């Protein structure tokens, strides 16, 4: 415990030093706050945002708005991506059918779909969820597929010797052993999706004045750099929290692949 406390306090110390560096630059060079505000202004802004309404509400309204869009797109990515990846990993014909179109779409940055997304779904949550879906799904599919294909052949043999047919092998061997890799896919998917959300909010609003992306835009339009930076900090913190919580969940399953 003392070790992790030490690591944490050292981390905080280094972080504080960087913040001080930021503050020193703005102070020594007397930087115009509309160009780069000092950290103190940004933190004041963060505190104000929690209580004072911007656009459709206070900070929590914007966070919830962004999270709702993210959750919609990410949930769809999971619901479609995991079964599709499993199917591609387990049934060769499905893999051969899906892979060409998948590989053709994958290199296209998700945000490039924004105009189409707006065209198809209109300026609403659907367009943003679609972009998030496209960003989050590829790593989920790839890892789910890989997880099934990497199932330990020795365990499959063991199951077969004891009478298991293909479906039981899938349900009782391939699926449980896939979980750690599937989680890896989810983690990358969360990161990709969260980044795409902000891009989607910047490019394709949903007609409302909510979201962390909206706050960044609002800062730009009103020449309030502190607002933009404050929103960026919130985005970073939430992204990190999402990653940490998924990682915590993943640790529970790690032993499943610890081979003997």
């Amino acid at each position: 415990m003392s070790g992790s406390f030490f690591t944490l306090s050292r981390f905080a110390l280094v972080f504080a030093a960087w913040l001080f560096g930021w503050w020193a630059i703005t102070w020594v060079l007397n930087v115009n706050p509309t160009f780069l505000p000092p950290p103190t202004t940004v933190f004041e802004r963060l505190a104000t945002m929690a209580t004072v309404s911007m656009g459709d509400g206070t900070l929590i309204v914007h966070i919830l708005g962004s999270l709702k869009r993210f959750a919609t797109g990410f949930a769809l990515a999971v619901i479609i991506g995991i079964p599709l990846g499993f199917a591609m990993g387990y049934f060769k014909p499905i893999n051969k059918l899906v892979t060409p179109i998948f590989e053709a779409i994958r290199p296209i940055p998700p945000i490039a779909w924004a105009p189409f997304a707006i065209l198809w779904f209109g300026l609403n949550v659907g367009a943003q969820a679609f972009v998030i879906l496209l960003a989050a799904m590829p790593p989920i599919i790839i890892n789910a597929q890989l997880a099934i294909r990497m199932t330990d052949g020795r365990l499959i043999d063991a199951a077969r010797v004891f009478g298991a047919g293909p479906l039981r092998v899938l349900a009782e061997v391939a699926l449980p052993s896939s979980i750690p890799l599937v989680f890896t896919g989810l983690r990358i998917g969360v990161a990709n999706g969260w980044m795409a959300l902000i891009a989607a909010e910047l490019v394709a609003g949903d007609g409302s004045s909510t979201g962390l992306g909206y706050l960044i835009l609002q800062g730009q339009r009103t020449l309030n750099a502190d607002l933009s930076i404050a929103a960026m900090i919130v985005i970073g913190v939430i992204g990190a929290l999402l990653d940490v919580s998924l990682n915590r969940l993943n640790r529970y399953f790690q032993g499943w692949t610890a081979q003997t």
Partner: protein
Amino acid sequence: MAMEQDTGNDLSFQNLGMVYEARTGSVAALDGFSFDVRANEFITIVGPSGCGKSTLLQVTSGLQAPTSGKALLNGRSITGPSPDKAMVFQSFSLFPWKPVKQNIEFGLRVSGMSRAERDELVDYYIGVTGLTGFENHYPRQLSGGMQQRVAIARALAMRPRVLLMDEPFAALDAMNRTLMQEELVRIWSEHKPTVLFITHSVEEAVYMADKVLVMTKRPGRLKCTIDINAEIGCAHWRTQPIDEVLLVPKFQELRHRVWEEVRAEIEVNA
């Protein structure tokens, strides 16, 4: 009453051949392997690496079909896995996400046995293999020796007619290995399934077997058979501790003879 295939043996290998097609050409793992195993016999198989020992077990278990020849169990051609054949793997191959008890009952559950019957059998074999108290442990929480006990219990719980063991003790340290050899003989003598036991240890082979089969280098064929019971001429030494048996002159002689046969194959290969 079609008995023409019944050789009166438990297992019968007739001119068994296995050729693997690889990109670099075909590899013959087995070529004309023939042997008959009587019921309740403990057979150990030794031979140089790559001589097709594991292939032989794969074919017997029904995991792979031979490319030529036949493998018969009780006079019937082996076409796939069945509950009367159980296997213990070198790598244990336990399901890491299932606790000990669920690992052991896997085959019974697949075969559709009722929970009550399963519980009774599993409890019995947990006791026999010395796993009492570890029912709810996960494999990773157990030592190698304990994990292999689970794998043995999983196979025995099927009450198989044939027990296939593919270098089951190769991954254990020397001391655990010795203990497990003695344990296996004790457990085996309770129901005496027919055993095919692959090993790289000549000592292990001579200690446990009714018959030791020596295979040639690839493509594997039966080189010779050493009938340990006939050689001993009285009670088998496998009921005595290994360290005592090691001192028996006849044991040393047989170990030497088997080793000479295996060595000839390895040196031809080199």
